[in-house]
């Protein structure tokens, strides 16, 4: 409709585009394991913070599982007050440097940002990362409590055990220790951080960042015990016998799922967990300087299209594969990975073999993988998940040459702790059943959170669960 009014309409201030974050150029980064996204400079962060409208009712906070007071921290950044911003974030989030890197912000805080309705949302994740990285040198202790309190003295008579040292446990431990409760974290592997160290590659989340967050807990007198397997070295009932008042179970999702097709145990077929654990935890990218070997692949096929699949594919690129394909039975639009991860993978040369579903792995006489037979698919009607269902195109099969196959189609519950604790009630998928508000399991004073409750999910949702359980445990132990 033509605007024929006499009074000229006030031109709307255009929404400034968000400030891009510098990254290592694709050509360079495929040759190393250094971090891809380089983070904002001070000028970039100030410019991006300036874009925030400081809404009266900020929608972004609702989108954050740990309810970071986003508006407040960005306001402090607008005044170039990094310590202030950090303090605000730390009041609810004990792992901001991690979250700033691996959270799916586009569907959480940024997905709810009002600027996103007309233009691009504020780059909240990048600002969180900038704040955490810039501040990192300081003691976490002073900033854990909010309201400027310093850490409460640790009471040795109030002990809580956290089993596992992934994001949910670390969050629970951080919350409780900042309130003066003595926490022991029991980790089965030799390194602390759970999925943050064995699952997420160095180029997306440097180990040094995780180590810094763990060190902050050490400063708060959290006991960190590695090589202790919950359900094997120690059982839940024994923790209570040892004087712990509450137990938080954050043992992750565990057992890798396979495709259940012929040839799956050929040499060269790996779970994404094994492939990534060798490279990340075992530092196999430094082999033979580091002892854990990785499997060389010239032609790599990755099955699945989530973030884990992207991590595996990009790792294979860095380890020198000539050709890496993501094999997925739907199309690019349905891929569950974060858009940024998918884009980065494509920039790095990863190919997408869409509308293809694996039927059989083919090997040679010595048992080595040489190819995979794929079934061509098309999209049919939407299924229960709302996504269009992939339907096989009859008789349309083809062979994809590959000497390394990586299966990234999810995990099922790890049986170790669950078999040792039959009192823990499970849901129909085999994960631990909890009270949704408190995180308490069917065992009194035993709480659970993270992937062992939800199945494979995000770092931030695991942290949300750790925080919820921590709040309830503190309430019970200290009458908070």
């Amino acid at each position, binding site marked *: 409709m033509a605007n024929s009014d006499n009074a000229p309409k006030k031109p709307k201030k255009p929404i400034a585009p968000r400030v891009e974050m510098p990254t290592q150029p694709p050509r360079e980064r495929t040759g190393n394991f250094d971090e891809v996204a380089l983070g904002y400079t001070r000028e970039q962060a100030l410019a991006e913070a300036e874009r925030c409208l400081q809404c009266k009712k900020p929608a972004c906070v609702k989108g954050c599982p740990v309810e970071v007071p986003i508006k407040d921290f960005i306001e402090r950044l607008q005044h170039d007050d990094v310590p202030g911003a950090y303090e605000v974030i730390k009041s609810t989030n004990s792992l901001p440097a991690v979250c700033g890197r691996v959270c799916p912000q586009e569907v959480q805080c940024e997905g709810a940002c009002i600027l996103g309705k007309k233009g691009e949302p504020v780059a909240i994740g990048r600002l969180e990362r900038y704040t955490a990285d810039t501040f990192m040198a300081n003691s976490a202790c002073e900033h854990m409590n909010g309201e400027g309190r310093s850490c409460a003295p640790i009471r040795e008579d109030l002990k809580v055990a956290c089993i596992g040292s992934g994001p949910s446990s670390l969050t629970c431990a951080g919350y409780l220790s900042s309130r003066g409760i003595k926490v022991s974290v029991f980790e089965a592997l030799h390194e602390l951080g759970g999925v943050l160290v064995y699952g997420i590659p160095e180029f997306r989340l440097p180990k040094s960042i995780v180590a810094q967050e763990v060190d902050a807990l050490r400063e708060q007198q959290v006991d960190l015990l590695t090589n202790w397997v919950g359900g094997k070295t120690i059982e839940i009932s024994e923790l209570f016998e040892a004087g712990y008042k509450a137990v938080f179970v954050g043992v992750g999702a565990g057992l890798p799922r396979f495709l259940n097709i012929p040839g799956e145990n050929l040499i060269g077929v790996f779970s994404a967990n094994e492939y990534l654990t060798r490279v990340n935890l075992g530092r196999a990218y430094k082999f033979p300087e580091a002892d854990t070997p990785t499997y060389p692949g010239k032609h790599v096929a990755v099955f699945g299209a989530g973030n884990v699949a992207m991590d595996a594919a990009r790792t294979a690129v860095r380890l020198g594969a000539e050709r890496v394909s993501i094999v997925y039975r739907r199309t690019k639009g349905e891929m569950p990975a974060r858009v940024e991860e998918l884009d980065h993978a494509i920039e790095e040369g990863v190919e997408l073999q869409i509308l293809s579903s694996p039927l059989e792995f083919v090997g040679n006489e010595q048992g080595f993988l040489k190819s995979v037979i794929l079934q061509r698919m098309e999209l049919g009607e939407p299924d229960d998940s709302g996504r269009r269902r992939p339907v096989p195109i009859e008789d349309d099969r083809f062979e994809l040459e590959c000497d390394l196959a990586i299966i990234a189609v999810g995990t099922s519950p790890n049986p*170790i702790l669950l078999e040792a604790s039959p009192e823990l009630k499970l849901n129909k998928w085999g994960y631990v059943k909890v009270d949704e508000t408190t995180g308490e399991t069917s065992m009194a004073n035993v709480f659970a959170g993270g992937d062992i409750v939800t199945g494979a999910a995000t770092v931030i949702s695991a942290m949300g669960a750790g925080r919820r359980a921590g709040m309830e445990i503190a309430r019970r132990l200290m009458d908070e």
Partner: protein
Amino acid sequence: MIEISAPPARILAKERLIPGQTSKLVIDAPHIARKARPGNFVILRIAPEGERIPLTIADTDPEAGTVTIVYLVLGKTTAALEQLGEGDTILDLCGPLGKETHIEKVGTVICVGGGTGIAAMHHIAKGHHMAGNRVVAIVGARSENLLLFCDELESFCPELEICTDDGSCGHKGFVTDILQKRLEEDSEIGEVVAVGPVPMMAAVARVAKPFNVKTTVSLNSIMVDGIGMCGACRVTVGGETKFACVDGPEFDGLQVDFNELNKRLTAFKPQEAISYEEWKKSHGQ
């Protein structure tokens, strides 16, 4: 009250069972000794950039708080382990892992051990003995000087049969020769247990099959985490994929696809060779 403490895993005693090849370590690890049962294994790492390797627990002393492991020098990690001595510490020692041996009172149990596997077999045999079973031990090695744990086994097994390939001790030939004979002579055998090289365990299963006797084998598949996370150790048992680290390491020998297991064990041979060669060069060997 249970004490939550983990002293550094110090090596309290070392015995070179076969010089340069196989050693026995007694390690201070009360929290593991308290929980370790026959059939369990540990994962250890000895250097900051080191590999995690699984080793079966050969014995425990819960009162002294020790676990005993026996290893064969096969590659870089075990070669470096062989350089450690009494008083040294193992960087990371994690366990006990795997399901414990299912032990029932069945009367007579034949326990077959080959090479380094005799050590792991010893712990299982001891468990059967403690449960009141009569244990017949059959052990085999290439030559007399490569036999392990014979004195220990003799102390509780009413029968100990020794086989060597070269005839330097006991029967000249394979453990399966003796096993076959025993199964033919004695129809009351409750169970056969075999721990050793894959071809030996496969042969034991082949021999035992016609006698319709329960046959348990302990599998040494490749592992990374050992806690059911990576699936490296998968084996086909009765047509189904199982994880040796959490479903095993012991399985029904009559159902195991040994051919596949043998192939999978070769997956990293070239890298293992590179690693070991580099280590030998840097250690003047």
